[in-house]
């Protein structure tokens, strides 16, 4: 079998849904939070509990199950630890825990986890979540000093701009104070705080940064993107995971939120367009042939949208692996006049990403053996 053929077959294999007990070594992310009953109104007939939850399940559903943010209100509370596998460049496993979890009831040693994401409701200024967070940090640092610790100060949409910053700062301060109280050496613990909300793309941005720390090949991907950007004079390019809208890597220029939002909206639109005009025609006679990859060159979906008028920009979209897409903003004159060259660059970029992806895949399969 020639190498390109083998590559194609590997490609097809991965496009299929994973089997139940897949033999992949997944990077584990632990998602923690609190759940408390703050207020009880007792009327003659019923006890109404105002349930303040931090929003872990909402985060997972919005990111990986495409749940519209408005619907998160109806989610049931999580009662036991649930594991969500997710495949992007590297295979992930995200553990969604009930609010009352402790280090002992988790059912797995903390050393197994690559990252811990702690979710705090931005309105929750009481001691309890902070105490719990610190407890986990201390326990995690003892068994695994290299663990990545992230704090999502969540539900930012509930507060006005000024209060938002103030509460964010307060929560940050409390956590740090408490950590230093435990022992002064914890002052050096690298702890990242993010302000997030499911109603905009701050969540995607923060979670992207969590994932970046788990991808060992990140510098190589970034380098590929840098080369792509300089060759096509693109001001910004992202490598996105198409379904979750997380970006796996981006070029060296700083991420500006407006551009990131636009790219996310663009992906959202393309994702919704796909099924809209899909033909439900009964399979025709020639389809069995096209199913064989050897007779047909692999097809990579692509799209572009041009924007004006300030400086004409074209947003391009090129799928590079079954789950990853290159989204770049290019000056429209470059895209229109030198489209062939841009696509040539995309081809080489794709080759590069594919190589890295194969290595990552081999490694995650091999590590278990």
């Amino acid at each position, binding site marked *: 079998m020639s190498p390109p053929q083998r590559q194609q077959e590997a490609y097809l294999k991965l496009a299929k849904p994973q089997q139940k007990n897949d033999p992949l070594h997944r990077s584990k992310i632990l998602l923690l939070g609190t759940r408390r009953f703050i207020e009880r109104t007792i009327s003659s007939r019923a006890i109404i509990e105002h349930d303040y939850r931090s929003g872990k399940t909402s985060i997972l559903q919005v990111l990986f199950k495409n749940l519209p943010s408005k619907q998160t209100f109806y989610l049931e509370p999580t009662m036991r630890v649930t594991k969500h596998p997710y495949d992007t460049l590297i295979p992930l496993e995200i553990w969604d825990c009930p609010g009352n979890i402790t280090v002992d009831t988790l059912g797995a040693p903390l050393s197994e986890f690559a990252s811990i994401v702690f979710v705090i409701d931005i309105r929750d200024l009481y001691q309890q979540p902070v105490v719990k967070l610190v407890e986990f940090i201390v326990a995690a640092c003892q068994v695994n000093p290299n663990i990545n610790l992230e704090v999502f100060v969540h539900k930012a949409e509930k507060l006005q701009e000024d209060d938002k910053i103030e509460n964010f700062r307060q929560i940050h301060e409390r956590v740090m104070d408490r950590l230093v109280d435990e022992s002064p050496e914890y002052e050096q613990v690298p702890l990242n705080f993010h302000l997030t909300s499911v109603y905009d793309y701050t969540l995607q941005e923060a979670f992207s940064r969590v994932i970046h720390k788990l991808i060992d090949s990140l510098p190589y991907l970034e380098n590929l993107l840098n080369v792509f950007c300089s060759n096509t004079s693109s001001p910004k390019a992202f490598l996105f995971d198409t379904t979750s809208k997380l970006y796996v890597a981006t070029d060296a220029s700083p991420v500006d939120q407006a551009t990131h939002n*636009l790219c996310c909206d663009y992906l959202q639109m393309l994702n919704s367009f*796909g099924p809209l005009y899909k033909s439900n025609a009964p399979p025709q006679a020639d389809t069995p042939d096209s199913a064989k990859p050897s007779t047909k060159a692999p097809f990579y979906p692509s799209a572009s949208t041009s924007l004006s008028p300030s400086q004409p*920009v074209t947003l391009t979209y090129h799928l590079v692996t079954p789950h990853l897409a290159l989204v770049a903003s290019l000056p429209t004159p470059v895209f229109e006049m030198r489209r062939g060259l841009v696509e040539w660059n995309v081809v080489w970029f794709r080759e590069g990403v594919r190589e890295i992806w194969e290595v990552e895949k081999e490694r995650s399969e091999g590590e278990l053996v």
Partner: protein
Amino acid sequence: MKKKVLLMGASGSGKTSMRSMIFSNNPASLTSRLGATIDVEQNHVRFLGDLILNLWDCGGQDAFMDSYLSTQRSTIFSHAGVMIYVFDVESREMAKDLEYYRDCLDGLSQFSKDASVFLLVHKMDLVREGERSAVFQRKAAELDKASGDFPVKVLGTSIYDETLYKAWSSIVNTLIPNARNLNTHLRIFAEACSAMEVILFERATFLVIATSSSSDASDSVVTHSLDPKRYERTSELIKAFKQSCSRLREEFHSLEMELAEFTAVLDEMTKNTYVLVVVHNPVVETAAIKMNIRMARKKFEELQGDTLIS
């Protein structure tokens, strides 16, 4: 050419929210900031270039309604092209709403007999998803009965999904005199592109003006059985993307897609319309479609000119 559009209904039924979404490009989340409409707010909306919609957003509080029906009766109801009457699906005073509606219908038949009437059962998002069609059927029957002999069209709408665009597309379709002619030409154009479907949108509102598939559904579309909600969903999606572009002070210009399922190009057709060409044949390149659009532009400019003179 000017067409008068009356937007009426009880206070708080959602008239102004609807108008701001369709004609001012506001997202649904911002409609909660709108205040009550005092008396009549008149707007001129340029639709399809020379066709101007004269939108009368009539505040729905009882005092205003009474004055529309008495002292202002002739000003309000004369020369109307369309009356859109909005009912809140969860209205607590349906009897009163119906009474006002019947009075308005009387006024309309007195001053502008030929006006078409659209009844929108609005805020359908408040009804549970499973019960929606049953609730709508019941309301529609009730409204049909209240309208007597007057021919009306009842539509269920919500600003949170694509039904809003579906309703308004069918409303503006009655205002474009030669829509049928456009459909025929789009069909010819679709054949030239070997396209599955060609859809023409108004530029500012992205409402559907005409499509290549005729109402009795041509064979090719049936065999491919596309999503029945595709037109409204497209309007909704493009509108949402236009909004996110404008947040960056950019303006949406064109879109081409080569997806696994189909190839599509969305581009300017005439100076106030956009066209979406959807092709399922993987051999057809987007550049070829763009070329066809460029060649068809002149013809469609002419057609549109004709439509508006007649």
